[in-house]
């Protein structure tokens, strides 16, 4: 009888493990494989532009070294600075556009629909904010085949906004 109780207790403990694993403990968010990016669409000030991975690969790149708290290792990503991508496709951040840019924010969407928000100021590095925010296509010298494109922000200690398989970037006016 006592043994039965012990077995039941053990089973109960095992049954609760998945629930514990799903508790959002910051960077340990599970990442299920999702379709890799095939193209990137920028929706900026009413204009939509779609770039292929080859077009993105041909743009000037920047390398950033980060500690990935999810993978618990140092990584070097290379990619296109998001500020350069936005500036070249209809959303420059300068004295003339500053008011509208400060009133807006940026959403980054993955191929699975998962969406995260960045402010405009924090991605217009290095002019407006410290750090680097890039759309990366290589990691440690190799193409990121699982993602195609990945968002990387050096100032985020938690990689929860390092979105996998980035497919759409939208500049949106804030509500208020």
């Amino acid at each position, binding site marked *: 009888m006592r043994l039965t109780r012990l077995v039941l207790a053990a089973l109960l403990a095992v049954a609760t493990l998945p629930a514990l694993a799903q508790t959002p403990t910051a960077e340990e968010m599970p990442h299920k494989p999702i379709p890799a990016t095939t193209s990137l669409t920028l929706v900026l000030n009413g204009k939509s532009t779609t770039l292929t991975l080859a077009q993105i690969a041909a743009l000037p790149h920047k390398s950033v070294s980060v500690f990935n708290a999810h993978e618990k290792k140092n990584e070097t990503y290379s990619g296109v600075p998001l500020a350069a991508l936005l500036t070249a496709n209809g959303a420059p951040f300068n004295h003339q556009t500053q008011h509208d840019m400060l009133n807006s924010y940026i*959403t980054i969407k993955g191929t699975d629909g998962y*969406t995260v928000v960045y402010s405009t100021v924090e991605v217009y590095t290095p002019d*407006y*904010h410290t*750090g680097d925010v890039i759309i990366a296509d290589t990691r440690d010298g190799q193409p990121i085949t699982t993602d195609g494109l990945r968002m990387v922000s050096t*100032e985020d200690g938690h990689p929860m906004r390092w979105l996998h398989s980035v497919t759409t970037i939208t500049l949106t006016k804030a509500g208020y």
Partner: protein
Amino acid sequence: MRLIRIVLATASVALFSLPLAAQTSPATIPGRTVSHSLTLVVEGKPTVYSLADLAALPHIPVAVHNKRTNTDDVYSGVPLASLLAAHGVTYTGGDVPLHKFLRCYIVAHSTDDYFVTFSSAEVFPDFHTGDVIVADSVNGKPIAVNGQLELVSSEDKRPSRLVYSLAKIIFLESPGE
């Protein structure tokens, strides 16, 4: 040693009494209205903080170079993350689920309709480098000419989001896209 204690005590009294002085005689530059309180809106629910309410909360210093005035300033204020956390907004298991938190943003308004946006993640110093504070003193003195309350972000290289006469902060969810 005793002299140091006296000096520190005097300095502390002087510093703590400064916000009160600011409430009684806020000087402003022409055309700038003064903020007398901060309204924080989370999930549509407003909470009003008086200057005294804010002064009573734990403060941290933030040093910035202000390109508008070409000065190095040290502000003191309440971390915006602390104010949000008090209303259930965190990325570590608050009332707002994590996936929603990452889709949210913050709008900070001055008394004169100037407003700027922050992402929710960037105002939490354990998540994103730097500090974002609701400041009520600068260089040891009350914020007088800039409307008593200012929003200050340590990682911004330009003062565009240095919101003078800060009056309202709204936590909002992006509709998607």
